[in-house]
């Protein structure tokens, strides 16, 4: 049994907000005791979902090495990324790539589109000569359904959002990493182009054996392409498991609410009940000790305040939810 591709162990990230000179610091726990494993083979698409501010981007930044963990480890192919040497980091960068949410911002407006390819070819020394480099770029672009002559000499603002995002995929393809962190790659492109990008992801997974950490708040796309799903609530895992299993049969009260709130694209299937949000303050005052969802939970009881609930298995194939409702002995008691 080979070691996992990516292993995140007890990752906690605390931001010091404010600080600097002149103001007092405040702590924001963006990620708490987070665990995640992506197997080396076969390649999978692992979805991270959750409401805004639940720590999804934080996780992406951690994996990409833009920020550092407050505690815990991120281990890539058996090597802790915080212990890497300079050359190992370069190697890691080559193996772990990213596609970001904003397809415009990732292009330096000063350069032509080809700059994104030149950059990786130069820094990762991918080419033996120029024509080989050309060929590889072309191959990458073809894989996402684009042609080099159409786009390479253009400036980023001359491309459509969908094109820009696909070029990012082509770029990742060119590097052939083992893992691509895709932070909301489709949320800014419109419905008709979304499918094309998701399709590229599937293709890369199946044909190139590239795994994805697919970050989204859109459960329906996750449902379409994801293998595993992790649903975060305020920095902790609320529920995780195979995508279909979790979305079809959510267990955690929050995940139930979330799934239920996704508007159905069917005029005959309208929302029936009104939902209410508690006051901001109540939501923010979530007890650090107990379950963070307590203030909003329809099923809450005092036991929830004792400690943050661990993950309890709720179905086979590792479908787990962090809710005391599923604590074996307690469930019996209730």
């Amino acid at each position, binding site marked *: 049994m080979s070691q996992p591709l990516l292993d995140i162990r007890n990752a906690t990230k605390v931001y010091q907000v404010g600080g600097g000179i002149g103001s007092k610091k405040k702590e924001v726990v963006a990620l708490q005791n987070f665990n995640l494993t992506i197997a080396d083979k076969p390649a999978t698409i692992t979805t991270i979902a959750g*409401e*805004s501010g639940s720590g999804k981007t934080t996780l992406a930044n951690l994996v990409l090495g833009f920020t550092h963990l407050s505690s815990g480890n991120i281990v890539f192919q058996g090597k802790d990324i915080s212990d890497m040497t300079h050359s190992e980091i370069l190697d890691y960068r080559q193996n772990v790539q990213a596609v970001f949410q904003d397809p415009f911002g990732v292009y330096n407006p000063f350069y032509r589109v080809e700059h994104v390819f030149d950059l990786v070819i130069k820094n990762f020394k991918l080419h033996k000569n120029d024509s080989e480099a050309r060929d590889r770029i072309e191959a990458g672009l073809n894989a996402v*359904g684009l042609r080099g002559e159409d786009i390479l000499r253009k400036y980023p603002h001359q491309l*459509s*959002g*969908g*094109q820009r995002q696909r070029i990012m995929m082509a770029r990742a393809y060119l590097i052939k990493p083992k893992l691509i962190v895709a932070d909301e790659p489709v949320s*800014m*492109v*419109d*419905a*008709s*182009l*979304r*499918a*094309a990008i*998701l*399709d590229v992801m*599937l293709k890369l997974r199946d044909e190139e054996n590239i795994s994805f950490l697919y970050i989204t*708040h*859109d*459960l*329906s*796309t996750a*449902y*379409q*392409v994801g293998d595993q799903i992790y649903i975060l609530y305020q920095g902790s895992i609320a529920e995780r498991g195979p995508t*279909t299993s979790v*979305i079809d049969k959510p267990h955690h009260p929050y995940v139930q*609410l*979330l*799934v239920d*709130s*996704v*508007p*159905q*694209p*069917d*005029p*005959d*299937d*309208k*929302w029936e009940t*009104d*939902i*209410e*949000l508690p*006051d*901001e303050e109540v939501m923010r005052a979530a007890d650090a000790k107990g379950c963070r969802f307590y203030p909003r939970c329809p099923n809450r009881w005092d036991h929830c305040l004792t400690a943050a609930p661990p993950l309890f298995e709720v179905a086979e194939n590792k479908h787990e939810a962090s809710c005391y409702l599923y604590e074996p002995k307690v469930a019996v008691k209730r």
Partner: protein
Amino acid sequence: MSEAQTSHSNTTAKAKNWADAKPVLKVDDLRIHYETPKGAVIAVAGISFTLYEGETLGLVGESGCGKSTTAYGILQLIQPPGHIVGGEIGLEGKNLIGLSERDFRRLRWTKLALIPQGAMNSLNPTMKVHEQIADVIVTHEGRQSKEKIKQRILDLFKTVGLPARIYDMFPHELSGGMKQRVCIAMGICLNPTVVIADESTSALDVVVQRVVAQTLLKVKELLGVSMIMIGHDMGLMAQMVDRIAVMYAGKIVEIASVHSLFKEPMHPYSQVLIDSIPSLKEKKPLKITEGITHDPRNPPPGCIFQLRCPHVMDVCRSKEPVMRELKPRQEVACHLYEVDAKGEVKNVAASA
């Protein structure tokens, strides 16, 4: 065809009254251009539609197709370098274009209110929430006692489900959902005839989005206003609107009741839109449309969708399709359909 008929006939009671519903807002051949160094961006290329009393009309289409521009065009708020090139906008039978600045200003908000895209930036950061609502009231209704205004604002807050304590707060102290609801409260405070909601929920979380959307629906029901809802989330549209206008590159390509459109979209672009909605219910293969949008400064002759249309025909490249009511209350601009002598609609491609 018969399916569409049925779905049409067995919708809610409100929908049945459409036949005798009064039109409130009539947009006719509205054209808006943005001047840029490389020529005019034709953001709105002659669109026409009618909004009926008490109705919610959805306006959908991909990003950049001119939805917001249309909304701002109706309110005559196009910023330079944009300008209205032509068209008519009739509100309760009165043509709005050509009204003096002053007269139009009086109409704003009393008749036409806006819930803007991105409520995050739509509130003045240096004014308290209540001041921003009060200044509309004072401007349009004249000075009145402080208590009266306060009472009114608090009532509004209640309507949209905002706590009274935010009365004295600044916008940055509110969450996104709250800001959005402040905008809604502001939009309805003068009981306008028409409310235009530009992507008023798309920046929000699903859960919050749902709460806000429900608020919007509730308010609309309560006040009986007509509403134009702009958005690109088809799911949300399905939940909220009565009728949908599908825009593509500055044109409306199809207008139909929400049921017809979801059940039986006719324009190829509408079909793509409907098909590519990812479902939470079943896993299905992704439907991909190829091709890219044309340069908005330089539309091709003929049909604007020709570059991406799976059914493109020769006629599409030369002749611009016009809007035709192919089915009752379903207007489509596409060469694919022909109405034969009997009034039957025929798909040209299918028959060929």
